């Protein structure tokens, strides 16, 4: 499959994720959209990794070509996991104070 399809899919997922972060009011939904963005990036990285592997198929380095892309995916997953745990903890704290997960209440940065 031409790599364009994978890139387009990844970009589409990324844009949906961005729009979601910007427009949604519920904090948990925003987190889901962030996850969506991260996974879109993962998809992109894996696609490129495969592309490089296929390109280097004829030469000797064919065995390990494109493995750095897949390696980076693991890093991103780890970071996503850590971030989610911290983020959800903050949302729980927020809920305990204002009994809502609506982000429009977060406007104290101005005073």
């Amino acid at each position, binding site marked *: 499959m031409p790599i364009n399809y994978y890139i387009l899919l990844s970009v589409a997922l990324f844009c949906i994720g961005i729009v979601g*972060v910007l427009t949604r009011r519920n904090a948990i939904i925003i987190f889901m959209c962030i996850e969506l963005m991260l996974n879109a990036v993962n998809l992109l990285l894996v696609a490129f990794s495969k592309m490089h592997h296929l390109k280097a198929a004829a030469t000797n380095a064919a065995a390990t070509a494109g493995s750095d892309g897949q390696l980076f995916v693991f890093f991103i997953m780890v970071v996503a996991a850590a971030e989610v745990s911290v983020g959800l903890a903050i949302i729980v704290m927020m809920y305990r104070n204002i009994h809502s997960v609506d*982000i429009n209440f977060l406007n104290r940065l*101005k005073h």
Partner: protein
Amino acid sequence: MNNVLNIAYWIPLLPFIGFLINGLGRKHLSKTATGIIGSGVILGAFVLSIWVFLQVKGGNTHDAHYFDFISVGKLNIPFSFKIDQLSSLFLLIITGVGFLIHVYSTAYMHEEKPEHFGRYFAYLNLFVFSMLLLVMGGNFVIMFIGWEGVGLCSYLLIGFWFKNQEYNKAANKAFIMNRIGDLAFLIAIFWIIAKVGSVNYTDVFSAAGLAKLKAADVVIVTILLFVGATGKSAQIPLYTWLPDAMAGPTPVSALIHAATMVTAGIYMIARCNVLYSLDAAEITRNIIAYIGLATALLAASIALKQNDIKKVLAYSTVSQLGFMFLALGCGAYTAAVFHVMTHAFFKALLFLGSGSVIHAMGGDQDIRNMGGLSKKLKITYITFLIGCIAIAGIFPFSGFFSKDAILLSVYLKSPVLYGIALFAALLTAFYMFRLFFLTFTGKFRGTHDQEHHLHESPAAMTIPLMILAVLSVIGGFVGIPAVIAEGGDKLGAFLSPVIAAAHGEAHAVSHSTEYMLMGLSTVLVLIMIVFAWFRFKNYQRTEATGLGKVLENKWYVDELYDKVIVQPLHRFGGFLKNIVENKVVDGMVNAVGKGVNYGSRQLRLLQSGQVGNYVLLMVLGMIVLLAIQFFIRK
């Protein structure tokens, strides 16, 4: 060089010291002390000037170099004095007549408070200092320093009684009109520096210096220098300040506006005679001659109808200066300098005499209120008469010889111009004797109190009058033309090293023509005097009409200048002040402030405090960066 003339710097230094002492100590010195110091330094300068003159007569001329004044790049302007025949002659005139006027002032100004008396003498001394710098300067820059200094002192002295706003306006007028001429003078100096590379007289007037000036340069420089001279010496179009300058004390009018400052222009052109004698400068010479003649005629016509004794003398000065410039324009530099000398004597005499009259009349200067003063003011009467005869130019008084020399040079240039110049000379005789007859003869026309107040002036005023009268009589004998006495032109011979072609003038016409010209002018002048006697014997005061009214109002020249130059300048100034200054300049400055205010108000809205907005902005920023990365930075 260790030339004995190096001590000539004491000549201007003494008046400068007098200025410092009288100026700084004016609140502490008594009037006697001020008078003695003020006059004493001038006497000292006069004695030194006599010594310098005798040295120069013996052949010892000198360029005294004192120190480097301005030294930048290739241009070196030294502070140097050029002591030669021309400057030593002027030194004598300035210090001699100046001393007499200082002595006269001690009596004339005796009603002033000591503080103002001291201020007066300080200004007078500063003036003499500046004038001496002017004539002794060895290059154009030192002359310009003196030039500006005399202009300044003229302003200070005209506005001496500063509480009167009219006098202040007259002082302003004098200074501003002078400045216009000074601008031309400055441009001429810059031009000379650009073309010749030096301002020293010896460099500019040497053959090498002249070679660096092309024909166009010569014309431009000579015309610019002449415009400077018109400002200082009151020629058309910059003459209207001089009659108004009569607002100053009478001794000031005598010294500054008759004998010395106004002759600075003639000195300058005489000093630059080498430049003006070049063939390329012929057009300038013509301009000078025509303007001089026009001024002489115009001022003489105005003087016919003036009723203030000092204004008549002021216009007479303008007219006589016109004669001197006419002589310069015809190439007769010696005749012009001769007339400067004789004019200094008889004009100072006339002014001081008028001061004596004003003193006797208790401050009234209107000749329509005078008459018959000869009975009570005998010395003033006789000396004034001598002055009038001298200015009319009757043999053997001094005015005859100098005026005759001028008229002869004009005749050599063009008989038509001679006719016009002769007519102006006749007008001179007429208005001077009109002044004389109206003031001193006939019945007294003033008030009873004035009649009782009439008295002859004290000795400090009459002795200078007598000395000047003697000089007016014998002063012409240094320049007797060759037709009357061979070798009698001592002045011409004296000045010949400085003034090129000082001798060739008189030999271009036959002796009989010269006798005829002399006789013609003398006879016509005598006829004019008799005519004036009959006309003003029984003077009735009448309103002026027609041409007389125009003359009395000075041909409305002041009003013309006001309409054409002063009012538009005022309006322009008002426009600049109200519109450009308030709206444009202030507007621009305020706009910066207002812009910052507006921008900050808009930028403040970015800080909404809502996290969502901040995330949006982050995303937008990232998009911009991506766009730059992919589309602009290839």
